[in-house]
């Protein structure tokens, strides 16, 4: 099991808010609602026997002496795409389980609030909703095969992503952040980028003469690592994530750096400081 009962209890208390991008207006937050008919009026339609008589507009009947029933907009479940990054960089750094667990936590929270989840798995998107959705999504996340996918490989399926995207990743792109950025940017999506990092990422315990092999592009780099090199590495890493953060601010996206060694409660506090998760 990716999530324990306690974890689910904690996640049940988490509120979820869907962010929407409205043309020429700042990004708005909409609270999630329970499933039910929408109250938004759409159109009139001539009453046919068998319809719910509660929908008959009696005022109009008084005016026109004809029975009309009101049509309401159908309430659609908000849909969020969750992308658990199980690329080689994640597998090599031993974050596979953490990514799966955190993705499951996000999916649970979304499904618990009646939303639909689209999960990116094996280069395609599966849709999950309803109470039964959790069992299926949990099962599928558990079965996800790490190391065979690349974040860039979601480009053919990128167009089928929903407007709101949650990415659980280490956000490492050896060949550049550009392609991934473009995929997410399609159709003005709103993204929540969750960077799962460990203390080893911040300060790797390496020294001496090493031949470093890049997990993503198989390139090698002969390198002598000492304390000065580690200091430079830390600076370059900080600069890299700072660039991503800046891009997120520019695009109205969210960037959250989550320490995977923390408890789930603390991790949730990082991504939802006021108890509300904005996706």
């Amino acid at each position, binding site marked *: 099991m990716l999530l324990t009962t306690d974890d689910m209890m904690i996640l049940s208390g988490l509120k979820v808010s869907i962010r929407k991008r409205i043309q020429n207006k700042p990004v708005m937050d909409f609270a999630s609602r329970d499933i039910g008919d929408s109250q938004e009026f759409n159109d009139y339609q001539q009453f046919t026997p068998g319809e719910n008589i509660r929908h008959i507009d009696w005022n109009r009947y008084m005016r026109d002496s004809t029975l009309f029933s009101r049509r309401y907009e159908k309430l659609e479940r908000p849909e969020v795409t969750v992308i658990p990054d199980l690329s080689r960089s994640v597998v090599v750094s031993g974050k596979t389980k953490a990514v799966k667990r955190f993705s499951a936590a996000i999916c649970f929270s979304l499904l618990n609030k009646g939303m639909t989840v689209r999960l990116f798995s094996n280069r395609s998107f599966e849709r999950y909703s309803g109470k039964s959705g959790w069992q299926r999504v949990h099962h599928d996340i558990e079965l996800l095969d790490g190391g065979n996918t690349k974040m860039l490989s979601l480009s053919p399926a990128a167009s089928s992503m929903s407007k709101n995207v949650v990415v659980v990743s280490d956000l490492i792109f050896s060949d550049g952040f550009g392609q991934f950025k473009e995929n997410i940017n399609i159709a003005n999506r709103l993204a929540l980028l969750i960077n799962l990092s460990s203390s080893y990422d911040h300060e790797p315990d390496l020294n001496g003469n*090493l*031949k470093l092999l890049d997990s*993503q592009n198989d390139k090698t780099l002969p390198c002598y690592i000492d304390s000065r*090199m580690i200091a*430079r590495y830390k600076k*370059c890493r900080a600069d*890299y994530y700072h660039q991503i953060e800046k891009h997120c601010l520019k695009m109205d996206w969210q960037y959250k750096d989550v320490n995977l060694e923390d408890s789930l409660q603390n991790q949730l506090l990082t991504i939802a400081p006021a108890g509300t998760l904005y996706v």
Partner: protein
Amino acid sequence: MIFNGFPIWFVIVIAAISSGVLIASHFLKMQQKSLIVPTTLFWRKAMESSRRDVIFGKLSSILTLLFLLTAVFFILFSMLAPAIAPLDKKILIIDTCPATNLAEAKKYARELVQQSDRAIVISVGQNTRIHTNLNDHRQSAFASIDKIIASESSYSNLEQAIKEAKIADPHAQIIVLSGQNLNSQERLDVISCPASDYAPKIIPLQVHFPGEFQLQAKAYCMADERFEYCENQNQADLVLDLIAEHQFTQWQGPEFVEKLSSMLEGRSGLKYRRPVQEINKNSSQKRLSFSLNLKFDKALYGIVLFLLLLEIYLIKKHKLV
């Protein structure tokens, strides 16, 4: 062979150890451990920034090479200890009074011009006349020497000529070729003329001077750099007496120098000093000291130092230690 006080075996051992360390480090460097990392992106950037920090990024290798070359140059420079000798500048004042043996004076002046880098020729009789300046060629100096004619006046104002010579170039050596029989006070007056780096040297060239042999002897003694040992006529005469007594027929060479030196020290505490030719020869040696003073063992010492520096540089560059 001794290398700056160290025996050759010691130098060979040091060179072997340092080369051994370098070679061993090189092979150790070849044995790198492979490690898969999530990305080499940050490491690559870190290495690039490291290179940038060393010395101006891409120029670092060239600049480091230049630095090493400069270091080697300075090491060799300090070992060779070259003395950049100033130009040998002479001002020849030829006294044209009848007492001067003008033919000898001209001959002697030509010899001095030949040996110097730059020469001013001044003739002094009734009037003082500057024939050439420092920038003129030797040929013009020779021509002007040939043109000098004897004056009718029995007295020449040497002091005035020396003053003018000092105005012409205060750093040049002034040599007076005169036949005047100057007494001690007159000599002192001439020598102590102010404003010059050197005291003028007076070479007596009287008409009645006995023979070419002694003339040269006196000239050598008076033109000696250590003039203080032969500062008066008596001392110069003493040298001449010694030469006559022992009937030297050869003026140069180690045998002559050695004998005369030992005789002088035994007789009056005087030390024989090198004659003009030898002095000038040595000064030209100084100017060529870049190549001539290079000793083989010192060069090897420099090479060993260079190799050590190179080794430190390579170790630093490839971070072998």
